């Protein structure tokens, strides 16, 4: 468990744009509404598995069948999931609830890809770039970091150690609630940029003559033109309207 690794992985708006751009560069030009799900295996080492009525138990069973026994406690009560990312040894599985409405499924796929890009792939790339390919064994939990690796990592602003899980309802979740919140924030930022890129949103808003302080107008644009589900669209719209009310630039509000 390495909270520092995860905390260091939190991305800001500019980094979210860069991560989304990296993925987009490897896949066909997206249509509208954008949908990353069909392109996940092309743009990242990810496999998509859609399960009707997805539950945590489905994820654990599937991972175990694939050779990965996750020591995750299964909490009592409802355990329905919209989606889930499981990543290990540089490879990942994205689970999606096959029963989700189309807009929610697109968002969930982008959100799980956001987790991959921001919390798994990005810190791995940074660690390998700074410390060499041998550090992958540390990230994968095969061996502890050596004293030299810890020192070199500290000098590079890294704390090499194995990944961990981000399930909110795990028994020890409160102890790392802040790290989980930051991870969710990062995944959402990347998802927004994948499905509703800031530059495109700004251009569409200008063309439509949207009042920048009108959150409902932003929400309408984001749902109708970019296909976001209502929840994430409302959240994004509120940010844009707040930024406009505070007289901030659209570019800043869009995280550019």
């Amino acid at each position, binding site marked *: 468990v390495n909270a520092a690794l995860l905390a260091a992985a939190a991305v800001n708006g500019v980094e979210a744009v860069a991560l989304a751009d990296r993925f987009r560069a490897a896949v066909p030009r997206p249509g509208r509404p954008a949908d990353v799900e069909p392109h996940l295996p092309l743009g990242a080492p990810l496999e998509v598995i859609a399960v009707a009525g997805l539950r945590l138990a489905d994820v654990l069973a599937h991972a175990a069948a*694939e050779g990965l026994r996750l020591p995750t406690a299964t909490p009592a009560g409802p355990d*329905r999931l919209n989606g889930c990312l*499981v990543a*290990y040894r540089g490879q990942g599985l994205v689970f999606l609830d096959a029963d989700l409405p189309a807009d929610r499924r697109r968002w969930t796929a982008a959100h799980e890809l956001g987790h991959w890009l921001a919390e798994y792939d990005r810190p791995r790339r940074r660690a390998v770039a700074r410390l060499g390919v041998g550090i992958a064994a540390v990230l994968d939990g095969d061996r502890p970091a050596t004293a030299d690796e810890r020192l070199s990592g500290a000098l590079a602003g890294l704390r090499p150690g194995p990944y961990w899980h981000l*399930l909110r309802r795990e028994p020890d979740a409160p102890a790392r609630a802040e790290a989980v919140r930051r991870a969710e924030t990062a995944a959402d930022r990347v998802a927004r940029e994948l499905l509703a890129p800031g530059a495109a949103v700004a251009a569409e808003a200008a063309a439509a003559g949207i009042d920048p302080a009108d959150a409902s107008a932003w929400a309408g644009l984001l749902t109708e033109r970019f296909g976001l589900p209502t929840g994430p669209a409302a959240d994004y719209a509120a940010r844009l309207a707040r930024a406009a009310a505070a007289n901030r630039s659209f570019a800043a509000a869009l995280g550019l």
Partner: protein
Amino acid sequence: MTDRPKPHPADDPAMRGAVFAGTAADPAWLGHWLERRRRRTGAGREAVAADLKTDLRGLTMLALCRTPTEENFADDLEAVCRRTGADPTALARLLRAEQRAAAWTAGPESSSAAPPAGWLMAASEAGETDDSGGDGDAEPRP
């Protein structure tokens, strides 16, 4: 008198067998992952070819291609599919599935009961009606 066209080498069953036998052991060749899929699923080569929307000749040509590198995965994949007629999306899915299965079963925990380390799991719970609600900072950061 006209010459009869020479048969394509990949249409010769003996040649095909030699190609797959020669590439199956080395992950650097696509033949390794195609044969891995065949063994894992118990499917015949015809079925693997059909999954990739090609035929046995295309599958044999595919086996002789280098495995796409991660850094140039999409470009490498497009190049081999253009040459062999395989479907890029289907080949990407096959490769990701086989490479993940190979990586995950290579871990020390696959043969022991010890819980593994080094994995990451993140879930969007169904009760979270809007995932964006977790994005807690009030002001978008430039």
